[in-house]
């Protein structure tokens, strides 16, 4: 039997790798991928907890996360396309129109 902690560690690692990727990559598409990675890390945790606590609510939440992830990817990528149409770059540090 695999202990719960292993799953939780795995989820944490995935989350942190995703976060690191989000913080250090310049390419906006890979940043989106990193977000997906983070969400997956969370999902792993949720499912594992759901399993060990013998409650399905965690898995329901996972479904919601997947739905939100899909929506987020759709909108985010649409934004990227719209952006790229105006400024042909996907490097976020070159897109600073929204600065204060």
């Amino acid at each position, binding site marked *: 039997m695999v202990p719960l902690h292993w799953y939780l560690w795995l989820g944490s690692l*995935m989350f942190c790798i995703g976060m690191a990727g989000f913080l250090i990559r310049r*390419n906006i598409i890979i940043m989106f*991928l990193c977000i*997906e990675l983070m969400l997956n890390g969370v999902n792993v945790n949720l499912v594992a907890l759901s399993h060990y606590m*013998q409650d399905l*609510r965690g*898995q329901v939440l996972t*479904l919601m996360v997947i739905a939100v992830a899909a*929506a987020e990817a759709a909108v985010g990528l649409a934004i990227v396309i*719209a952006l790229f149409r105006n400024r042909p770059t996907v490097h976020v540090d070159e897109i600073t129109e929204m600065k204060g």
Partner: protein
Amino acid sequence: MVEIIFGYFAITILIISLLVVTSRNPVHSVLWMLLLFFHVAGIYLLLNAEFLAATQIIVYAGAILVLFLFTIMLLDLREEMQIQRFTRGWPAGLLISTGVLIVLITGLKGFKTTFVGQWDIKEIEEATHTKALGKVLFTEYLLPFEIASLVLLIAILGAVVLAKKKLKT
């Protein structure tokens, strides 16, 4: 036995996720991601969540990643690959992430579950996983479920509006 399978999945997932984060070419990243999703689905299977494993593959691998690939193709990013991958402040990002990781790991060490719900393995197997999940989803969490559909609808509309070229007037 289960530990070995878990070990395989876990190690593979970590390696792949590092590759996702570091590859120069976004297409490679996406493809690594695809592989990652399959392994995550494997983890789900280990946890007796067959329906979720299926959803993972169908939705993530089948829909979202395709969307990513589409976008990359659409943008034609050939010259983008020549320039540096990381931001100038990358050590800071790495540091913070490591910090979060350390805190999480230390925090999780003392983590104990005290709550025990009604859906133990036996009951799920009796009712089959999909049916059990469906029951919870459509009774207790009906409203959130409907809202999720609304979110998706709006996301579609939003995506269409954003990605559409401006009408020439």
